[in-house]
């Protein structure tokens, strides 16, 4: 057995030095009837060669790596520069623990500080934390913060949020405390949200862009929430934030924008991987920082006056405050946040902008091609970023089945969320898609639609 650190001879030596005869003597506290006598009924051991064969076979049962992806809905097929993988998979980052001893964790802590800086900049916010599990749970944590801050119980959520985010909100808060306000145009209905605001509402939550890729114009939402004493929370796509005015910025009339900006950061240098591990991000106003969930890195100095970074405000956290903590969060998504930091640092000011603009141009090109095919139409009229909902002349499942032979994943079947959407595809086009691939995609739509 090469995995454990001891040879049988060393084991005997150690048992002798401990002063017991057999290993079982160390288990005296475990009642004999509770000890396992049979070997575990699990397969293995497999050598690396056998593991590679077995997992390789399983991985090839998925369609993903043989298909050109137009998939979105929160998880996207963006390019990951080679340097991201090369740097992030280094043992120094991957096999370190939470930076509890900052003197030997300056690598991790500095990277977290840089992550916080860039996320805060993207969000137009004063502060950001070291990351949370995913976009859905980051939205939940924002709602919980709003409840603590306002002392109010209910939250208003726009139906234009990701359906799974709405589900996770209901799981955590209880369905009776989450009022979902219909979004007939695919974006938040500001008037309906304003009417639903009541003295027991802690926050208004909307998506930027909406689940259907549409651009929100959130100024009215921010003003209405604030007038009612509620917080405004935006669940955002980071690529859209590269070009759109961030929700944390002031409204056009100079009034306050959103109070908390959260989102799913998979697009920033992380592979889709069936949607997990993902990367929740969380940014807010400095005034809310003491209620913030999760880890925070801060700048300080060491004994020699040299700059360094530490985890701070740990009195918010569960390992100090126990039941009075702001959240039960213990981990962050450290390695994914590191990948995002390298990704954003590498692409930088120009590269990030180019990625976002390529996505927008290609998505609009694809939408124009699709809308010209008989039977297809955009589901919503509003402006969109790198994703759009497409109404098909046949069930979306048929389009997907037809596309398989061409090696194309043509979009997300929205019928999985609501039966009335079963003819609707959610189509995302990233900077990776070439004009030729988009042409092939349009040809598949045409063929599948023609069988109606």
């Amino acid at each position, binding site marked *: 057995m090469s995995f454990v650190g001891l040879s049988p001879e060393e084991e005997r030596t150690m048992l002798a030095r401990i002063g017991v005869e057999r290993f079982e003597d160390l288990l005296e506290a475990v009642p004999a009837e509770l000890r396992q006598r049979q070997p575990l009924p699990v397969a293995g051991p497999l050598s*690396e060669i056998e593991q590679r064969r077995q997992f390789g076979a399983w991985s090839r049962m998925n369609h993903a790596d043989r298909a050109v992806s137009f998939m979105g809905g929160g998880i996207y097929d963006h390019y990951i520069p080679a340097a991201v993988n090369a740097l992030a998979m280094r043992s120094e980052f991957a096999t370190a623990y939470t930076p509890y001893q900052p003197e030997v964790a300056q690598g991790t802590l500095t990277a977290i500080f840089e992550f916080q800086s860039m996320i805060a900049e993207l969000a137009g916010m004063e502060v950001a934390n070291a990351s949370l599990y995913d976009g859905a749970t980051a939205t939940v944590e924002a709602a919980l913060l709003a409840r603590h801050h306002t002392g109010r119980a209910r939250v208003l959520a726009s139906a234009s949020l990701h359906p799974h985010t709405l589900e996770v909100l209901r799981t955590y808060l209880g369905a009776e405390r989450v009022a979902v306000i219909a979004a007939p145009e695919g974006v938040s209905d500001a008037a309906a949200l304003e009417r639903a605001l009541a003295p027991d509402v802690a926050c208004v939550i909307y998506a930027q862009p909406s689940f259907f890729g549409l651009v929100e114009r959130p100024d009215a939402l921010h003003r209405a929430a604030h007038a009612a004493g509620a917080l405004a929370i935006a669940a955002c796509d980071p690529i859209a934030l590269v070009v759109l005015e961030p929700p944390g910025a002031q409204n056009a009339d100079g009034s306050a924008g959103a109070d908390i900006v959260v989102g799913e950061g998979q697009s920033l240098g992380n592979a889709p991987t069936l949607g997990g591990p993902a990367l929740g991000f969380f940014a807010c106003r400095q005034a809310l920082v003491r209620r913030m969930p999760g880890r925070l890195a801060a700048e*300080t100095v060491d004994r020699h006056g040299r700059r360094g970074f530490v985890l701070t405000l740990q009195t918010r956290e569960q390992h100090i405050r126990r*039941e009075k903590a702001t959240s039960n969060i213990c981990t962050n998504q450290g390695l994914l946040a590191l990948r995002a930091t390298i990704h954003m640092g590498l692409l930088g000011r120009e590269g990030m902008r180019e990625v976002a603009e390529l996505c927008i141009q290609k998505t609009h090109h694809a939408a124009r091609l699709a809308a010209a095919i008989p039977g297809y139409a955009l589901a919503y009229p509003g402006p969109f970023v790198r994703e759009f909902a497409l109404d098909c002349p046949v069930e979306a499942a048929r389009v997907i089945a037809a596309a398989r032979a061409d090696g194309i994943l043509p979009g997300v079947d929205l019928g999985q969320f609501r039966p009335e959407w079963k003819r609707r595809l959610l189509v995302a086009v990233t900077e990776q898609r070439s004009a030729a691939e988009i042409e092939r995609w349009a040809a598949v739509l045409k063929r599948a639609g023609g069988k109606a």
Partner: protein
Amino acid sequence: MKLERRLLIEQGGPGHRGPRLPACDVPALPLAELLPGARLRGTLAFPQVSEPEVVRHFIELSAMNHHIDRGFYPLGSCTMKHNPKINDELAALPGFALDHPLAGEQASQGSLRVIRELERALLAITGFAAITTQPAAGAQGEMTALLMIRAHHRGRGEGERRTRVIVPDSAHGTNPASVNLVGYEAVTIPSAEQATVDLEALGHALGPDTAAVMLTVPNTLGLFEPRILEVTKLAHEAGAQVYMDGANMNALVGLVRPADLGFDCMHLNLHKTFSTPHGGGGPGAGPVAVAAHLEPFLPAPVLREVDGTLHLDCDRPQSIGRVHGYHGNFGILVRALAYILGLGPAGLTAVSRTAILNANYLMRRLKDSYELPHDAACMHEFVLSGRGLRRYGVRTLDVAKRLLDFGVHAPTVYFPLIVEEALMIEPTETETLDRLEHFAAAMERIAVEAAENPQLLRDAPHSTPSSRLDEGRAARELKLRWGRPAAGRETPAPEPARR
């Protein structure tokens, strides 16, 4: 002369950039035309640095980290074991890495098969009837299980009255925090002499309002509860559910099945027991295994197999709902299954045996240099107290900082709370006898230094990339990002309307 360490934003500048992107090969229109009515942002104040300098920056950062591939990492309750490299490669196979969570069952049969096989293995290891792999971390697993427990009580018409959860004072902080998160009230009970559950205190605390009892096995002192069957029986007689915090499962794999101890449910930390890399603080994964009576409440969707095809079953009327945006931390699940299959039945048991042997060996080695508050055979970890060094003006924190000078990471300190000046040490099965001896020698030498030259410890560490950092200043100044927010941007958060 060395260049001063600089942040990315302090490097490069206009004219510097990283990798190029392809030119736009579709007809392009001005953004203002494509996004009518949208407010567009001005400059994004991101770094402008060339690829070689970005690479050097992160390599420079990496060199400042301690990590398990470099050396000993005896953080108690964190299970810093070797992370087999093959597991990372398998998780990165394109078929897994590119799999999209909304592509549908048919497109993801391979991923679902991995989850299925992992479910089977974890059920075999824990002895439970059903499992969810959706929770993204142990703390989320705790919350998931507590929601299922509440659904169970509600189903029996006892949801209203059962509102309290009993947690021993030795528990991890996430336990009471999770209790609070789901709206229950945490009731802390003191531990008995040997840091095990005080049956009398438990009996007093249990009542018709008890929803659950949360226990860590082995407990945070590394001790197995010898009367665990009495504990779970007592709780069940009061109508409570019993939850096991599985953070310390590395002591039990192949030796004891938690379901046999009378527990109703538990979480596992795949990033501890099952070797997935900690990544500087995550990602982890916290599957929750349950007894049959809790199965209807599992988060949706639940994996179901029909004629060899795997389905995501969302038709679960009693489910507590989703706890993750997609299917949990799948990339971590791949690694955990690879670990299990790589070791096989005998290998898995050998891991727990070796972890226990290493901990007991170190405990014997160190009990004369430091105080051992609970002198009994331990499981995978043990707790020493540094209170004897106080007479030299030395705290446990100083011992921890001095250890860094010996190229090993410090143990977990000041936890569990029930031991003064605690040093919680978990060597794991990874360590060789040489490494254990080196650590013991360092600890012994530090105990001598405490008496002879206490200032050396108070000033430690001396050989690390940074010397001791001023945490107080960090909290006072709260500089949480580079640069300064532009003037006028610091608007106060709105206050709730006064009623």
